[in-house]
């Protein structure tokens, strides 16, 4: 583009926080900061626990979504959910004690970190880039701003790969919900002799809502919208792709709401399983 900003004699750049906006323009930014901040702090704490991630309370079989899938169990723990058995002997001693969450949390974490909605939200809330619409930015970035054009943020373009993994996780979490529907005790507490009985406890509902909300979030992903049909210029003669694009677009319109609902719920599901597992509360069996 030929005209440089120098030729333009633009008004002075706004100073940090400069705005004539009225009212609580900072509130959405603050809420994002607190919401994401609280989730990250809790999630990190929960990931390092390496315990209380499943419960057989009342014959249930609940697994925390922060630990699913369990590739290896934590040292000395047999959850019955592990794919490859006990804690890995090769886990280096200088690292913090092994937690199954370490092996899997990168996937949902990376998916959300590179999600188009969250990107816009945390650039505002954590970087002040900008702090809110039509509010001045911190001066240090000035004309050195790179956006997502260069390293490091150009890496955000990896998002669709996290999407592929996230879709696999939906199946895994749906299987966990299925397992949460089978109990080794009848609703009155008598043990079942062979096999399990179908039942529903509060935990079953918590763990079933989880993949549903995550599904609403994941299947409304912008990258998915592109892959199923957004990349085409013509839908005529491609009814399946048209339908798929319409469906994803429909979820996509509420992507922000799905993002927050599923984030809250996945955290709550971990809290619930953790409280049951540590005996603080007992799961209530509905039938």
């Amino acid at each position, binding site marked *: *583009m030929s005209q440089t*900003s120098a030729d*333009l004699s*633009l008004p002075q*750049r706004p100073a940090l926080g400069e705005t004539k*906006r009225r009212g609580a323009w900072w509130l959405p930014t603050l809420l994002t900061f607190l919401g994401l901040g609280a989730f990250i702090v809790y999630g990190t704490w929960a990931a390092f626990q390496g315990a209380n991630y499943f419960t057989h309370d009342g014959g249930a079989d609940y697994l925390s979504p922060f630990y699913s899938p369990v590739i290896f169990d934590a040292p000395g723990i047999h959850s019955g959910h592990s794919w490859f058995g006990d804690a890995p002997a090769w886990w280096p001693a200088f690292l913090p004690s092994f937690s199954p969450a370490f092996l899997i949390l990168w996937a949902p974490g990376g998916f959300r970190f590179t999600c188009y909605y969250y990107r816009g939200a945390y650039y*505002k809330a954590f970087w002040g880039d900008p702090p809110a619409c039509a509010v001045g930015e911190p001066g240090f970035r000035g004309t050195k701003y790179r956006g997502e054009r260069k390293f490091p943020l150009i890496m955000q373009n990896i998002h669709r790969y996290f999407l592929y993994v996230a879709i696999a996780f939906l199946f895994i979490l749906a299987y966990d919900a299925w397992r949460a529907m089978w109990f080794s005790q009848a609703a009155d507490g008598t043990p079942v002799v062979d096999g399990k009985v179908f039942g529903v406890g509060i935990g079953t509902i918590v763990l079933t809502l989880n993949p549903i909300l995550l599904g609403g979030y994941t299947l409304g992903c912008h990258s998915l919208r*592109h892959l199923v049909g957004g990349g085409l210029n013509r839908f005529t003669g491609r009814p399946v792709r048209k339908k798929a694009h319409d469906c994803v677009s429909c979820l996509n319109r509420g992507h922000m709401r799905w993002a927050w609902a599923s984030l809250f719920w996945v955290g709550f599901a971990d809290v619930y399983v953790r409280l049951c597992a540590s005996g603080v509360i007992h799961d209530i069996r509905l039938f």
Partner: protein
Amino acid sequence: MPEGTKVTFRVSRGDAQSSEFKDYTTEVTAGMVVLDAIHQIQAESAPDLACRWNCKAGKCGSCSAEINGMPKLMCMTRMDTIDTTQPVTVEPMRTFPRIRDLVTNVSWNYEVKKKIKPFKPRKPDAEDGSWRMHQEDVERSQEFRKCIECFLCQDVCHVLRDHHKHAEFAGPRFLIHTAQLEMHPLDTEDRLEQLKDEQNIGYCNITKCCTKVCPEHITITDNAIIPLKERIVDEFYDPLTKLFRIFKPKKKG
């Protein structure tokens, strides 16, 4: 708002070199819009106050300004949506050079637009030189055609407003223009490289302020910018789509 409320407007007066806020008090009624009040101030107390307008119907895109700090069309901002207990600030757009008072020079936008590769339709479908298209195929482009070129989205975009990347970044208005052409079922041009290296779509960090201020309610970020970013991933960053392209030569459509 009771009939005949006296409201103070704090209007930014000046030119590219210097400016100051001046207070004007005038009587407003509920049906009025900010542009009416500005005209009234011109008639009553500041005949030399410069402002640009044409249609007073939200369709020409010339009365863009910042009202209480938010980019808005003066002719579409009703007085009864504003808190009038405090002075109402009215400023010109901050992202373009000021000519005088509320009038800015937006010609930079026209320069940007000229550089976008124009519409290049495929060969006509019928002998009379006409084409056949389906509604479902032009729908996406049509949303972007609603644009009235008010440049409020350009004004609010922090890449231009705060970082002054006018020399490198096309801004949301022209990203939707490019999307409109790129997604058009008849178009055969390829603008992705231009989009990446000249219009620098990568500067956009999808913070959606453009979408928020658009008076035509165009879903700029979600329906134009992000889909274009995804097309760029296909073309330049995703190793898998690149690999597939070796086997399947790129075809538009």
